[in-house]
C-alpha cells in the first residue's frame, strides 16, 4: 500500500475538502486546481457540507483486493448539495431502504486495512440522514 498517497489524500477523505472557483463559484471535488466549468484556476479550498443525495448505487459481491472483508457492500454515486458527484461506500443502512434521491450525510469510517500489520485507511462514506442537527 502506498502510504504517502493515502497521506496526501487525507484532507479530502477526512473532511471533504475540495476547491472553489474564484471566477464562477463552481465547487470542485476532488480538488483539481482548474475549474471544470470556466477553465479558470481554482485553488481556494472549500470544505463541503457533507450533505447530498443518492444518485445511483450498486452492490459489490466480488470485491477488489483490500475490500474482501467488507463484501457485500454498497457503492453509490452521491450528488453533493454543492453540485459534484462523488463515488463512495454507503454505511449504516439496509439496501432495502435505499431510493434514488434520498438524502445522505457524510461520515468518516474505515475504508480498508493493509493486512494485519499495515496502515488503516480512513475516509468518507455516506449514510441515510440521521444527524439531529440536519433533521432539524
Amino acid at each position, binding site marked *: 500500500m502506498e502510504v504517502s498517497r493515502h497521506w496526501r489524500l487525507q484532507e479530502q477523505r*477526512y473532511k471533504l475538502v475540495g476547491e472553489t472557483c474564484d471566477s464562477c463559484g463552481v465547487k470542485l471535488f476532488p480538488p483539481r486546481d482548474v475549474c471544470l466549468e470556466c477553465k479558470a484556476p481554482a485553488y481556494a479550498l472549500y470544505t463541503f457540507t457533507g450533505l447530498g443525495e443518492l444518485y445511483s448505487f450498486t452492490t459489490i459481491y466480488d470485491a477488489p483486493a483490500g475490500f474482501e*472483508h467488507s463484501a457485500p457492500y454498497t457503492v453509490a454515486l452521491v450528488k453533493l448539495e454543492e453540485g459534484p458527484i462523488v463515488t463512495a461506500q454507503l*454505511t*449504516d443502512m439496509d439496501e432495502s431502504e435505499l431510493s434514488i434521491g434520498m438524502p445522505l450525510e457524510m461520515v*468518516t469510517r*474505515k475504508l480498508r486495512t493493509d493486512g494485519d500489520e499495515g496502515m*488503516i485507511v480512513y475516509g468518507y462514506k455516506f449514510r441515510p440522514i*440521521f444527524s*439531529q442537527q440536519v433533521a*432539524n
Partner: protein
Amino acid sequence: MSEYKPQDGLMKPDRAVGIVGYGAYVPRYRLPASEVSKMWTNGTGGTPIVEKAVNGLDEDVITMSIEAARNAMLRAQINPQEIRAVWVGSESHPYAVKPSSTIVAEAIGAVPNTMAGDWEFACKAGTEAMQAAIGFVGSGMARYAFSIGMDTAQGRPGDALEYTAAAGGAAVLLGPGAESVAIINGSYSFVTDTPDFWRRAHAEYPSHGDRFTGEPAYFKHVSGAAEMLMESIGTKSGDYDWAVFHQPNAKFPERVAAQLGFSKEQIKPGLLSPRIGNTYSGSTMIGLTAILDIAKPGDRILMVSYGSGAGSDAFDIEVTDKLPEVQNLATTTEAYISRRTEINYATYTRYRDKLKLS
C-alpha cells in the same frame, strides 16, 4: 513534612473551567444478551443487561471518536484551531503504536497547533483525560482541550464479559468557565494497585478476577472517590439532581448509588448499560452526555468513573444557563441509543473479527 488531610486531595483549578461542548456516539448494532446466553449456557441463567452496542465492520475507536467530537464541536461552536489538546482515552486503540488522537484532531480541523495523545487506564482513561484537560485549561495553557472516552471493548467468547463488553463513548470539550454549559466545581481521584482486570500486551482478550472485581475493586474505589469528593466540597447525595457511575453492568452502579445515598431517580437518565452495555472508557462519560441532554440550568451532577487496576475519578458538575441553547445542536445520546439494528451471534462474530479467515 506538613500534615496531610484526605480533603486536600480535591482538585480544583484556579480559574473556572467547564464543559463548552459535548457529544456522544453509539454504533447502531445491538447484540441481545439472550444471544450470548443461548450460545454458551443453552439459554439458562440470567443476563446482566438487555443488550449491548456493537460496532460495524467499518467502525473503530477512531471513527467513533471523530463523530462524538464533531457532535461536541456542533454544540461548542468554536474555531477548532483554538483547541490545544485532543486526548483520546481507550483500551481499544486501533494501533498499538500510532496515536488515535492525531487522526481525530486532523478530522475535526484542530491540527497542527495542538497536543494530541492517547490515554489508557482501563475504563477511566477518558475521565483521566478530562482531569488533565481541566488542569490544562485552568492553568491558562489552553483555551480549549478535548477529552474523549471511547471503546470497542473486547470480551472473550463465552466469558461473563461477553454479555456486556460494548462499543460507544463520548467527547467532552473543556474550556473557560464563562463559556461553559456546565462548570466543573472540582474533582477527586482515588487509585490503588488492585489487580481486578487486565490485558497483557498482544493478548486479544482481557483476564479478570471474577468476584474480586466487586468489593475490593469497583465498590471501594467508586465509593472512595465519591465520598472524598463530597466531603471535600461539603455536599451530600441530596445536593445533586443527577448522578452517574461507571457501568460495567446494571447491578454495580445501582448498588453503589444506593450505598452512597442516591435514589433510583437520580441515576436513571445516566444509567445506560442495560440498553448499550459497558462501553468501558466511554461508559461514565456517555452517561454524563445523556444527563446533559435533559438537565436544566442550576442542576448539579455527580460523575464517578472506574478503571480497573484500579481507580476512580469523581467530578462535581453544575449546569449553567447556556446548556439549553446547545442541547439540540447535535444528535442526542438517546437518539443514538434508540437507533438500533438487532444482530444475532453469528453476525456479531463477523463484526467483531472473531472469524479466522486465513
